[in-house]
């Protein structure tokens, strides 16, 4: 730079550079609503068993929390740090799975949290100075300006202070072992999480993290059953075909003062079935196969993962800096 201010530390890391827009705190947000996402579809047919017709307890979806972040006139999405509802190696996983411009004044964000608890995380949102027009009244502090005269750093607005970082990606698959047996799917997440050192080295319960979810996965368990005999005067043979599926998104948690874990949470759970009865041995074969799903039911995609190998950077800060 020809003019301006650069502050570096003993490691030559740049702390403040007046040419760069730093992120500043814009607010702390609680969820405005929450929901679970499930999909049930009876694709028809006379059903001899008529069971099970529900989402199984072994495919329990997490809960999606929606946040409204007011940032009038902005064009860049806010950075949404998550303050989780708990920390530790048994804590719920959570991640930002969706951010979009809702209207001129507001952004919306979805945070997925594993488990069905209605108590959601808190979002700490940050934005650059060129994206906010809020006013501050405090007359003490430090401001830096770039060559265009724009404020790039303002100590009165609680600049983002990062205390740790890592590069995280979830395990290859949310599940290991069998995905089901008989009419019981085993689709809950059972993977051992990947663990990363963050260098945060401060009380876990005070930490907040930024690591948007990139990866998704969809896995299924299929079951076909058929029987024959004299059910009644009309039917001799009957069958039913079920698919249970779960759509997962990568999710994260603060494990210890210095570690961060990456795994999965169930974003949506589905169960689709179709049945048939016949008076002869003929006419039941079409039930046995995945094409029945594509014909009439919602199904994200079959038995694979997307963006799974795409590691994402994690930033760690402290809630108490902004409370």
């Amino acid at each position: 730079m020809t003019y301006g201010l650069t502050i570096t530390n003993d490691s030559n890391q740049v702390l403040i550079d007046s040419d760069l827009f730093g992120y500043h705190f814009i607010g702390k947000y609680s969820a405005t609503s929450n929901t679970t996402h499930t999909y049930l579809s009876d694709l028809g047919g006379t059903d001899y068993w008529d069971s099970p017709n529900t989402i199984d307890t072994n495919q329990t979806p997490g809960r999606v929390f929606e946040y409204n972040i007011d940032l009038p006139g902005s064009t860049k999405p806010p950075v949404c740090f998550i303050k989780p509802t708990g920390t530790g190696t048994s804590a719920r996983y959570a991640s930002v799975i969706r951010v979009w411009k809702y209207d001129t004044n507001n952004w919306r964000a979805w945070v997925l949290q594993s488990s069905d608890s209605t108590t959601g995380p808190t979002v700490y949102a940050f934005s650059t100075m060129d994206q906010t027009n809020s006013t501050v009244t405090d007359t003490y502090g430090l401001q830096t300006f770039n060559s265009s005269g724009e404020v790039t750093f303002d100590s009165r607005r609680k600049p983002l202070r990062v205390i740790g970082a890592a590069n995280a990606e979830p395990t290859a698959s949310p599940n290991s072992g069998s995905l089901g047996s008989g009419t019981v799917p085993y689709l809950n997440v059972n993977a051992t999480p990947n663990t990363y050192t963050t260098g945060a080295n401060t009380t876990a319960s005070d930490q907040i993290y930024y690591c948007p979810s990139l990866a998704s996965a969809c896995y299924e368990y299929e079951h076909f059953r058929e029987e024959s005999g004299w059910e009644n005067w009309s039917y001799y043979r009957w069958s039913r075909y079920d698919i249970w599926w779960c759509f997962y998104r990568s999710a994260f948690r603060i494990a210890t003062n210095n570690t961060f874990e990456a795994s999965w949470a169930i974003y949506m759970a589905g169960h689709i079935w179709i049945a048939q009865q016949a008076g002869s041995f003929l006419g039941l074969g079409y039930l046995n196969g995945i094409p029945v799903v594509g014909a009439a039911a919602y199904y994200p995609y079959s038995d694979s993962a997307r963006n799974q190998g795409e590691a994402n950077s994690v930033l760690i800060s402290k809630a108490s800096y902004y409370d």
Partner: protein
Amino acid sequence: MAHGFKSYDSSGSITYDSTSVTWNLIGVYTAPANSNATFTGVTSMNERIVVRQMVSDDNNTDKAYVHTYTLVGTTLTATRPSSTQTQATTFQVFGR
């Protein structure tokens, strides 16, 4: 701290402390859905990290692909994995 600086608000609370090795935002770049993109002029610093976030108001694209990327010198290159199912991706490049 032995060296460095702190800034305070008028109530005496610390608003910034140079012992916090914060990451500065170098830039925000958005690659459009289903397209490749190249961004130049990305400031070089000792260390840089990139955080990606898929941005969409379409709930049906939550199963989409995210752009892959390379950051070499001052050029950020975003590549679509799919020409039909890649979501718009925001790249936030931080440096220090």
